[in-house]
């Protein structure tokens, strides 16, 4: 609950900031670069005189968008592959799992490089990269849950009645893995935000000057900024950590909610 109390205002602020914050995230002011916080610029200005607060809010919008869309994609892909592997026969299962293993064996650096250079950099490719890196974990979890289930009477029964794969997936697969999915989804949003930040560090995330928390944090790479203008990375860093923290709390709460024993608390 504490998680939601933090998350909702952050979400609201990033979505509505244009209505109440006078500065534009990409407006430069070369006469006022690297300024400290002031009544006009609450968080100061960055290396080209852009308002840090406006960039923070716009960056939050980008980061959250990247994280949520990639979460949706990786959840769908992860569930589908895991569920098909879990319900279909041994051959399909074996193939799908080797595919998952292969995806997990690929060195992420190469994956990133290639995807980024084929697809270019920016919001779309970043979403793609994060989704492609994340789905195998979910597939494994869904599959192992469904494998337990496959032998149970009701699945055998509905199979005996000639239920198709589609039916199995949505009538039995989805309800029985919904807890995994929901928890994974929340944690993946948090993971997505962190991955986006990491990608920016490697130079292949959302490209500047488009603001994202990742590329704002990335300015800490410059010793000048790290040392002399700490607020340029501290504010986005703090907001990023707090947001991820809040999402993780929500995820933890959901996990408890899906665990019947937790009611005893």
């Amino acid at each position, binding site marked *: 609950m504490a998680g939601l109390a933090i998350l909702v205002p952050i979400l609201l602020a990033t979505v509505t900031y244009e209505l109440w914050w006078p500065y534009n995230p990409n407006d430069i002011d070369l*006469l006022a670069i690297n300024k400290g916080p002031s009544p006009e610029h609450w968080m100061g200005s960055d290396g080209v005189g852009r308002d840090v607060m406006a960039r923070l809010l716009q960056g939050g919008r980008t980061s959250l968008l990247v994280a949520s869309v990639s979460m949706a994609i990786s959840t769908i892909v992860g569930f589908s592959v895991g569920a098909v592997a879990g319900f279909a026969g041994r051959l399909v299962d074996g193939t799908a799992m080797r595919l998952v293993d292969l995806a997990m064996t690929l060195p992420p650096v190469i994956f990133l490089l290639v995807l980024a250079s084929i697809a270019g950099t920016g919001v779309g490719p970043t979403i793609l990269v994060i989704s492609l890196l994340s789905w195998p974990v979910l597939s494994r979890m869904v599959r192992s849950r469904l494998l337990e289930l496959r032998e149970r009477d009701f699945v055998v029964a509905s199979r005996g009645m000639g239920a198709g794969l589609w039916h199995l997936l949505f009538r039995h697969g989805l309800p029985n893995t919904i807890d995994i999915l929901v928890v994974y989804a929340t944690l993946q949003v948090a993971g997505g935000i962190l991955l986006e930040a990491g990608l920016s560090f490697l130079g292949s995330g959302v490209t500047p000057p488009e603001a994202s928390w990742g590329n704002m944090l990335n300015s800490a790479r410059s010793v000048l900024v790290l040392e002399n203008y700490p607020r340029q990375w501290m504010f986005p860093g703090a907001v990023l950590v707090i947001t991820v923290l809040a999402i993780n709390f929500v995820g933890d709460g959901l996990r408890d909610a899906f665990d019947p024993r937790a009611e005893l608390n």
Partner: protein
Amino acid sequence: MGALASEFEVSPDSLSYTFRLADAKWHDGEPFTSADVKFTLELAKNAESGGLFAARSADIASVETPDESTVIVTLSQPNSAFLSVLSYVMMLPEHALAEIPVAEIGKNARWSTTPIGTGPFRFVRYVSDQYVELAAFEDYREGRPKVDRLINRYFANPAAAVAALKAGEIQFSFVEPDDARTFDGDTAFRVIEGDSFVVNYVGFNHRVGIWDDVRVRRAVMHAIDRDAIITSIFGGAAKRADCGYVADQFVPEGLDPYGYDPEKAKALLAEAGWDEINGAAPISWVTYYNSPQVANLMAAMQAMLAQVGINVVPRAVDVPTYNGIVRGETYADFPMTYAGLQNGPDPASLNVGLNGSQLPPVGNNLMRVEMPELSSAFDAAMAETDSAAAAGKWQQVCRAMNEQLPWGTMWVASRYGVASSDLVDFHWTPAPGSGPYVAHPEDWDIAP
């Protein structure tokens, strides 16, 4: 090479160069002789060796060695860049390499584990991605160096180099211009400023069609407030470039400074019919620079160009990706670039990037500049062997660049090195690594 010749003469027809070699020894004790020079130059000409100078040393007709310390190089045609090319060539010991097949030299294990040279320090070991260790060479021609060992450390991340410098683990390093500023006022360090000899430019791809009208290119120049960027983002550490050169002798009077004037830029665009040519469609703006400072520069320029109605989208890629793109034929992938090209100390460096005869695959004219006036200015300057007259010819090149705007030349930034104040007699220029700068490491010493 330059450092190993004690003196040289050029024949009146500019075809024959006679070098007198300095009295030097290889690190294994063997004397450095004219045979080594002949061996090296012939190897450089031979494309099979995998050297990068094959095309540029193609003009060498013959190399003669009348005695151990004299070399006569004859060219098939005059080439004013010859001495400059020669200064890049590293001499190789014939006695150590002669029996290795030419095609194998590039990947021969013995050479990569025990290279020898004639410099003040000899190679001890190389730990990959970590450091090179060098030790004083007792028989160095100008006397034994003062320090016993020299270690050249490699850093993957510029911040780590700065950290190591600040932590006292290393005594000097190149630093990013921004990072150099963090040493201001710190008495434990000395910040050394040097000319980068690299002109940064906004590259217009002349094959995509949107830059054909010179008024559009001029509008770009007027839209960008270069002086403000140099003052604020560079902190003054750059010179405005109104053509490819900033060195006084190559810059004529009366160049158009393209002052910051967004209204004029808009007017020029309207005249040229920019709305018809491209309008607000996004233009991908590719660069291989990945430093935080360039990200800031490009963000500033993007915002300025947006004000006049040119919508550019910066895209930073790594060096191989950049080279892969700009050397390819898919012009739509790089309608615009932000890049740099070496413009000195030898002004001829720019020829290969701007002369119409240097279009790929022959040369490095990646923006596909084909401007007859500019090309002939380059040809004239390249053929001029009289150094006094050459400066005037290079001024012509500069003037043509300023008028025609094959590129939007922006500035020449300074390069920085930071050295610990403990270093004594430390002469070192933070210039491009391949340049012929005399650093005299044999004099360096660390204060007790």
